């Protein structure tokens, strides 16, 4: 399923790279500990997190994740958005808590 479909279906707000939503989402990963995401996420996964610091971009870029969803209405700071723009990492926002976001993405991917 491509990222744009997930963004449109879930009503996610693109914080960055709204023109780079064509990537294929192969699954999802949820976590706020960067070492955990580094060790256990896989290429193409959509990362759901509450972290807003720019280091999330480095992790997403290194692991080639399809994008980052920041939950609970939290906003990435300016450094994060600039780095994401430079690296081409889509950052999306949801006002929902992580549990609900993950549940909805899981259902979407299962039914795809």
């Amino acid at each position, binding site marked *: 399923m491509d990222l744009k479909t997930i963004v449109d279906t879930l009503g996610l707000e693109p914080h960055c790279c709204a023109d780079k939503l064509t990537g294929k989402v192969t699954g999802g990963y949820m976590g*706020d*500990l*960067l*070492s*955990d995401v*580094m*060790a256990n996420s896989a*290429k193409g996964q959509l990362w759901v997190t509450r*972290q807003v*610091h*720019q*280091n*999330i*971009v*480095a*992790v997403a*870029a*290194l*692991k080639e994740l399809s994008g980052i969803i920041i939950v609970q209405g939290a906003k990435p700071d300016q*450094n994060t958005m600039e780095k994401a723009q430079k690296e081409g990492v889509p950052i999306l926002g949801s006002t929902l808590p992580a549990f609900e976001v993950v549940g909805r993405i899981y259902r979407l991917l299962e039914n795809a």
Partner: protein
Amino acid sequence: MVCDAGFVDSFSVEGRAFIDAGLISSQIKKILREKGIPEEVVRKVAVVTFEAEVNIISYAEVGTISFQIAPDAITIEAVDKGPGIPDIDLALQEGYSTADDTIRDMGFGAGMGLPNIKKFSDIFEIKSEVGEGTYLKSIIRINGSP
């Protein structure tokens, strides 16, 4: 077949330069891809170099990360000038961390850095001296070499 076997490069890492976290790992990953290193190996090197980079940034004054491409393995070495690790066995336990609040606020400091490096290495060595610094070496085999 691995191209450019014998290729060596190294990068300097500044302590507390959190803004640069991942920069070196990203460069190393790019080089390995250009040299035709298998994807699975590149992924492991990315994890090892990122954790090594973040450790230097988090805890040391300054450090160097270097890597070498051999026909059968990638060798990564990270050496820093810093406080050193008083108890390496403890530091290797998942979840053990001496991170301060600044580090934790950024999502680091989960106590998984060294365990991750060890997990993704085929051979792992670490030495440290309190008041001096830490040295670690990670060897990641290519193509299932012994």
